[in-house]
């Protein structure tokens, strides 16, 4: 065992510079268990760590480290502090923030987890960390034909990258099927059914890293929305109109050569296994006036099921999507205003709506949410649980004179976990609601007045 650890240290020396963390040495991880779920193209990793303060001063925070290949694909990191024993477990969400470390080895990225209360010397705390990786399954072979199934690589480390000393750790990797072409074996490692187990490993120095590659079959739909623009238009006349522009692509292994309709329709199970046709969007419960179309017209293959808690829109793009194929489309719907617009205690109004993409199990590379406030709204401000780029625009819609303020929220790398409510606060005087009807009425009035005037005016030069 000692010899093996020696090898690991060599590994570390090769991959990373020698760590020199002063504060890091105050904490150590007593036990860590990581479960990586590779069953879809969104990689979810659940990390349970038991942290102990071995220093003299209380520690207020700890660091989570990610290798540079993962940090750019990291969609979300959440941490919960677990208190209590088995049945009476309570979870307290902790604040997680990306942070820069001046002496980070090899561009390692860090997240700082702040404890609820500082961890005293000798105390331990159990944390549950969830992090989600996108675009982390690399198809190999890069191009496949219609009859082949899709094989992908997953790169990670067998041991958890951490700036702290890790006493004991285990990693479980779950693959979507039992077909695993190969995996890097770091003893003790074994595979049983859909699960590969790495570990338990003992006593790893800080910043240890042991690259592993898993090559396995994954035919789950690699639905990647390259760009999604959601426009939420508030009308104080009673509805919320949502228009979503999708640029969808199949992000898996590229399709090569022939597409055969005969094979596709008669041998569906083996032909085009990695392609997908149906998609599911989860929409708000009281949704109405749903439409599904694209640049050249309506697409007739969709079904809507409305329910009490949610509505489901099942739809198909015009053609099945094979690797690398694209489809753009628009989904639009309307929801009643009273479910989503409220008045705050200070008299301001706020919209409370879901942020992310309604499609299940999809990655959105670039999400733009535009909240179109009614004409005459002032002082907009958005409140979100995570950082996004914010901007203001002006949009002209029906019968607008000064234009509507648009709050633009933009975020990259969005996964279904981002489907959390966000709020947009603004001030609005109800009198502005009457501007448009008044304009219409006055327009008609002027038409009638003009007609009256025309009838009564004699434009003839010569009197008849």
């Amino acid at each position, binding site marked *: 065992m000692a010899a093996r650890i020696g090898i690991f240290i060599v590994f570390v020396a090769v991959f990373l510079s020698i760590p020199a963390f002063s504060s890091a040495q105050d904490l150590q991880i007593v036990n860590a268990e990581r479960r990586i779920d590779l069953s879809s193209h969104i990689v979810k990793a659940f990390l349970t760590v038991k942290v102990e303060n071995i220093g003299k001063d209380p520690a207020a925070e700890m660091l989570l480290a990610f290798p540079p290949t993962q940090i750019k694909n990291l969609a979300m990191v959440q941490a919960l502090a677990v208190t209590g024993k088995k049945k009476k477990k309570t979870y307290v969400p902790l604040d997680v923030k990306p942070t820069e470390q001046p002496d980070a080895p090899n561009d390692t990225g860090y997240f700082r987890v702040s404890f609820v209360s500082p961890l005293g010397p000798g105390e331990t705390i159990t944390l549950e960390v969830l992090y989600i990786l996108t675009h982390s399954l690399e198809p190999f072979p890069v191009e496949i034909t219609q009859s082949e199934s899709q094989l992908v690589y997953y790169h990670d480390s067998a041991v958890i990258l951490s700036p702290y000393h890790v006493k004991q750790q285990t990693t479980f990797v779950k693959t979507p099927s039992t077909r695993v072409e190969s995996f890097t074996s770091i003893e003790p490692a074994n595979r049983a059914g859909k699960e590969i187990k790495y570990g338990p490993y003992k006593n790893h120095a800080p910043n240890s890293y042991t690259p592993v590659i898993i090559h396995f079959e994954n035919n789950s739909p690699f639905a990647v929305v390259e760009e999604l623009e959601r426009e939420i238009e508030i009308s104080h006349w009673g509805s919320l109109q949502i228009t979503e522009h999708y640029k969808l692509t199949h992000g898996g292994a590229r399709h090569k050569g*022939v597409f055969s*309709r005969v094979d596709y329709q*008669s041998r569906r199970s083996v032909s085009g296994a990695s392609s997908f046709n149906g998609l599911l969007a989860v929409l708000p419960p009281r949704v109405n006036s749903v439409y599904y179309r694209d640049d050249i*017209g309506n697409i007739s293959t969709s079904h809507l099921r409305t329910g009490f808690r949610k509505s489901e829109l099942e739809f198909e793009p*015009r053609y099945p999507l094979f690797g690398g*194929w694209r489809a753009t489309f628009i989904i639009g719907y309307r929801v009643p205003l009273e479910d989503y617009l409220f008045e705050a205690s200070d008299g301001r109004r706020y919209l409370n709506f879901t942020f992310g993409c309604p499609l299940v199990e999809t990655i959105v590379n670039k999400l733009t949410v535009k909240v179109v406030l009614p004409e005459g709204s002032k002082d907009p401000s958005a409140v979100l649980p995570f950082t996004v780029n914010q901007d203001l625009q002006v949009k*002209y819609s*029906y019968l607008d004179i000064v234009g509507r303020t648009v709050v633009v929220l933009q975020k990259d790398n969005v996964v279904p976990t981002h489907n959390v409510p966000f709020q947009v606060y603004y001030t609005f005087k109800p009198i502005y609601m009457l501007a448009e009807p008044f304009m219409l009425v006055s327009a008609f009035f002027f038409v009638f007045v003009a007609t009256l005037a025309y009838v009564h005016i004699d434009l003839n030069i010569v009197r008849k």
Partner: protein
Amino acid sequence: MGGKQDSTKSESMATTKTAPDLLNSSIFSFKSLKLKTKQQELLIRVSILGLVYVLAFIARLFSVLRYESMIHEFDPYFNYRTTLFLTEKGFYEFWNWFDSESWYPLGRIIGGTLYPGLMVTAALIYWTLRFLRFFVHIREVCVLTAPFFASNTTLVAYFFGKEIWDTGAGLVAAVLIAICPGYISRSVAGSYDNEAVAIFALLLTFYLFVKAVNTGSLAWALGSAFGYFYMVSAWGGYVFIINLVPLYVLVLLITGRYSMRLYIAYNCMYILGMLLAMQIRFVGFQHVQSGEHMGAMGVFLLMQVFYFLDWVKYQLNDIKLFQTFLRITVTSAILVGGVALGVGTASGYISPWTGRFYSLLDPTYAKDHIPIIASVSEHQPTAWSSFMFDYHILLFLFPAGLYFCFKRLTDATIFIVMYGLTSLYFAGVMVRLILVATPAVCLISAIAVSATVKNLTSLLRTKQKVPQSGSTKGAGSSKASSKVTLDQSQPFQKNGAIALLLGVFYLLSRYAIHCTWVTSEAYSSPSIVLAARGAHGNRIIFDDYREAYYWLRQNTPTDAKIMSWWDYGYQITAMGNRTVIVDNNTWNNTHIATVGRAMSSYEDEAYDIMRSLDVNYVLVVFGGVTGYSSDDINKFLWMVRIGGGVFPVIKEPDYLVNGEFRVDKGASPKMLNCLMYKLCYYRFGELTTEYGKPTGYDRARGVEIGNKDIKLEHLEEAYTTSNWIVRIYRVKPPTNRL
């Protein structure tokens, strides 16, 4: 016009009267609200016209309700694409647009080869709506342009009817034209084609011209010239105007109806109309050089000779002298004209008539000489049934209307009779020209209906009034009523009149029912989306065209060149956004023939042709799985004919067996191995299409195909839509020979 002014005056008088009444006492105010007969009539007329206006619009919305707000058929897609370009890039860019996406590798100068009227109209509507803060999509504007102009046409029909007969005929004409299937066929929502605005422009020009002839007013003639300009900018059918109007003038001259009014109307309309028309780049100098426009110029010169002779006659004041002068002038004028025409034609300055024009005068011309014109279904001679289908009772009312017109011959009725007869002839030559005849047929039928109903009702009224007042003065001054009063002694006259009136109303209601039925069943299908009834009566939608076009748009390289038969060219460029080899413009017969040749050759030969044209994808339409009959196999003989017309290697008999076109085992070997056959039936032999039938059973033609083992060497299947209607093949790059 006079009547209108009168009515407005009386209306204003009435309002001035009511004002003091209202002030004085409220008891009288109710009484004063009662309108005079004339005002009542005006109110009824205006409300009928308003309702007809709305009716004409909503009757055309079946397709939007049944399917969706979308552009129909083939040519409208080109118009839509150009309109989109116009609204995005502006007018100058549009005018100078060189389109490299069509007719690869030739390209097309769009600005110089289209009639911009429709696009500019739609763009103006769009910009106006935008200015008024109605942020509509340009597609909605394009879809609703045709119904909107159909509504406007009903108004023009009303004024035209009023001009040639009376307001009653005008109203009936407006109602008839609002729902006439012959017009609806080309103006349903989504049928965004030149004809949509052109019929409006045509009728407006005619109306204004007749008005100008009737009044001799320069203003109306000017209006007519501008109407003509709009028509020229919108549709190639303007040639009909520029030939009908001179013909009409000629007839008036011959029948001795020459007048100063006619002189003013025609000269103003012709000169200004010509100058304006020449501003349209597609027409340009053709207006003074081509054979189709020579008639108008000839009549214009003749008009001057007439005027000159009139003047000389007045100056000479001597009949004998004048007649010698007349002889000399006429002979020399004819000689000079003949020589000028001869020299012009011989030197090529005056171009001869085009093939389309010939095919109008001689229905058999196209069949023998220009297969590309003959191959279009809407250029076929009209069948009797389609006359019945499109006109219904108008077909019987038309002769009756002619009778009334001849009975009351005026300059205006002569015009409408000539318009009706000539356009009806053209409608017989080409199916699509039923559209041009429709307004005339509606107007003449309206005269018949209006005159009949008027006679009958006045007959009823006079009989009622006789015992009351004893005089018939108040019953109206029409001839019919005075006649009726004379032979009052005829028995059962009243009952007969009532029966006849009921008959007329029955006929008209049948007409309304027929029109609605035809519109909803026959003319409201977008032909991009196909609908069928399933086994359980449910509606099945085949959206394969758009599936394929969208696939092309999203999943092929942006510079890919698509080869298909020319029918689908406009749709591929508009919906697929890809370059095509040939499209529906059909200006270059050789290019189309090259594609026809490729489709009818063996794969190796076709491969060389496709390589020389840089083709990346080949698209074919195939209805064998769904039973969709207007597919490429059924169009195939035209490809052979058009290809063979330019390249004699392609011979039609090679594809036929005993003069019969077959695709089953008995088909000719050339047919079974040509590119089109291979592409349509590739791997079709493995498929069971219908229960109880062998594999490879073609449902469109009802046979089992003859070649089930098709191997492709130079092409590979790139995409086939879910119902197999569109099949796309990728042309493989040449293999490396090492």
